[in-house]
């Protein structure tokens, strides 16, 4: 399992967030659901930029520093200031934003846990290990 595992986490979180947002709209309010979705979107964008920066900078191949700088510039000032403005505006409930932001973590944990329980190779280390043993 390579970098597509991150893409799958992002996709699963987005789909699950849409389903949860429907329930929130039904049982709480549209504002709570929107806050939740904004929290999820922020979190997914953040993970996407982390993925980009890690794959561009921490690699055995040649690094593309210009791409990494652009990603870093978008992530740190733009994304973080955007997050600050969303929190500081006070329009959305802080708890809905935090719930949305946190959604990706249980999903990532459950996906990894599912692979461990099903005895699937989580990050592709076991196969390598077994090959090395023989």
């Amino acid at each position, binding site marked *: *399992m*390579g*970098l597509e*595992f*991150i893409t799958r*986490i992002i996709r699963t979180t987005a789909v699950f967030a849409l389903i949860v947002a429907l329930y929130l709209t039904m049982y709480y309010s549209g504002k709570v659901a929107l806050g939740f979705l904004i929290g999820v979107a922020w979190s997914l964008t*953040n*993970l996407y930029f*982390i*993925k980009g920066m*890690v*794959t561009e900078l*921490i*690699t*055995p*191949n040649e690094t593309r520093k210009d791409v990494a700088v652009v990603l870093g510039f978008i992530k740190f000032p733009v994304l973080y200031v955007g*997050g600050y403005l969303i*929190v*500081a505006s006070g329009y959305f409930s*802080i708890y809905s*934003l*935090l719930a949305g*932001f*946190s959604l*990706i*973590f249980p999903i*990532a944990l459950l996906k*990894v846990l599912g692979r461990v329980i099903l005895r699937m190779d989580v*990050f*592709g*280390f076991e196969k*390598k290990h077994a090959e090395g043993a023989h």
Partner: protein
Amino acid sequence: MDYKFALALSLPLAIGLAAIGSGFGLGRAVGQAMEAIGRQPEAAAKIQVAMIIGSAFIEALTIYALVAFFILMGKIG
């Protein structure tokens, strides 16, 4: 000492500690990942996945501290 004074004193310290912990954790994670990739370049993609998930988790803790900071700042008035 009223609670507002206590909050004003402890909030910057708390956010500073959170930033130090997060920076230390991320620094260690990146350092170890670089070392691991240097030792096994063919395992780079797998190390990157673990690194990305780990970074997201470490960063989230600081963001929680930051949000708690903003919430409590509102209570100082």
